[in-house]
């Protein structure tokens, strides 16, 4: 590699921080999970499906409610934005027609923020939804990519790295499903399904090429994340059954 970037913690640009995920961490919650990427850690709890939807929601579908709790202090506009992104992301992976007129609450508690907080929270809530047995179409894996000044992309930046970046991109992809039917429509056009983007949130100014580049790198890394998530969920299935 010609344009090698030095990272504070000595990682290679493509290297993620150590992942850890444990499910069923809370006793009263219907489903819970804690997810950590390096020093960033989020605990998610799922309650539901509870009867009735919130006012103004479609009663023919299940409603998802997201509550974001910060580590310290009161929640403000950034937390409202996180809640909205999470709600819409989770809505897109849940099978909403199975429990019509119900509400599922997802509560996220930030334990520590050392960068890539939103992706960490999305991964945590996804694991918690699985733990609660909420019917899902597929899982979602979230990753953040940082674009440094030279246009180089680093994955899963920590808080110190985030501050030095030119732009930050949070991406959410569906996980790759090993299809039972080999010729199932897992490909849309000439791209495989897991290359479809569920959510994208960006901060900072970059060229369109920088974005497309991080998208490509995000795809590649999401496969690793999705394998980790699958392995983690499978290992815990027998004990729950």
């Amino acid at each position, binding site marked *: 590699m010609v344009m090698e970037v030095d990272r504070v913690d000595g990682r290679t640009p493509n290297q993620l921080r150590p992942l850890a995920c444990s499910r069923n961490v809370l006793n009263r919650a219907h489903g819970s999970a804690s997810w950590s990427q390096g020093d960033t850690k989020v605990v998610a709890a799922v309650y539901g499906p509870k009867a009735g939807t919130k006012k103004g929601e479609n009663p023919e579908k299940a409603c998802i409610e997201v509550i974001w709790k910060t580590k310290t202090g009161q929640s403000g506009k950034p937390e409202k934005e996180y809640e*909205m*992104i999470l709600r*819409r992301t989770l809505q897109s992976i849940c099978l909403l027609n199975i429990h019509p007129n119900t509400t599922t609450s997802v509560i996220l508690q930030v334990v520590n923020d050392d960068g890539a907080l939103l992706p960490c929270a999305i991964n945590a809530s996804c694991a918690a939804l699985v733990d609660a047995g909420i019917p899902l179409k597929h899982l979602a894996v979230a990753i953040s990519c940082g674009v440094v000044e030279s246009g180089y992309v680093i994955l899963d930046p920590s808080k110190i790295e985030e501050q030095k970046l030119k732009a930050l991109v949070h991406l*959410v992809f*569906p996980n790759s499903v090993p299809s039972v039917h080999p010729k199932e429509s897992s490909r849309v056009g000439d791209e495989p399904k897991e290359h479809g983007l*569920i959510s*994208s949130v960006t901060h900072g*100014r970059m060229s369109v090429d920088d974005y497309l580049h991080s998208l490509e790198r995000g795809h590649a890394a999401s496969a690793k994340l999705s394998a980790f998530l699958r392995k983690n969920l499978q290992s815990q299935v027998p004990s729950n059954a």
Partner: protein
Amino acid sequence: MEAANPSGDLSAEMEVDAFRRLFPLRFFDRHLVESIRPDGRPLGRARDTTLALGAVASADGSALAKIGSTTMLAAIKLEVMTPATESPDEGSIAIDFHMPPICSPMVRPGRPAEAAPVISKQLSDTILSSGVINLKELCLISGKAAWMAYLYPEERNNMNLKVDKLWNFMITIVDIYCLDADGALFDAALLSAIAAFSHLEIPVVSLDEDGRVVILSQDEGLKTSNEPVNAEKRKLTLSDIPFSLTCILYKNYILADPTAEEESVMETLITVVLDSSYQLVSLYKPGGSVLAYTSALQDCIALTRHRVQELKKILDEAMSEMEVD
């Protein structure tokens, strides 16, 4: 006809309005196969957009933006502040987006709309990260030395103490009111905010006896005994102005600049913000049932490029009209 509607929809027997309300998705499907939308637009075209600068006389800068019937009123107030210690040579911008009950039947009085804080946050992220406003320009008094000599010639030994206070900057408070929420709220809000910034003038200020900054109104400026500090009103120089376009992804279609009805029926939205030199400021897709593939993303970016040119022209026209007046 029969074969085209295997589900046996009642479109032939029903009034158009009833069909639209009862089967909104099928209603849109039947338009989209013809590559047209219910309001007569082709899929990729945005609605007519108008801008009026200086809509609020009491504000320092203001603008009214309309995209179709979505209406946004932005007004900017300037206040003097002492800069934060971490960035001593910069002013600051506070942006607030309001959705009063007048704008939509979804908003109830007393209960703030869910979308408002989110759009508010998006707007400040976009405006600050695009760098369209040079925060250093919000400095009222530039040149520390010149300034010291001017104000306190007799208090040389006290100087260091006072210098800190003399660095005065403007905080710009931008309030955007949504008057009519008919889809693409972020686009209209950003356009109105940018237009209000281009209309904004930094007023003439002077210092009173205590060394505080006083904003002089036009006629007052001539009478007062205190000499104004900055010679004349000035405008901000806006570099790389960000413009945005929201698109709906639905099946394989991309619908630019959706109305509220379209947003409620087809819920996958994607907002692209490009600045005038076509750098990507934001690509925002909060969930939605349709996955965005690279080709769709590139189509959205291409549509936004086209829209940037349109909006740039509209903004330039509005500004030149203002100068004529």
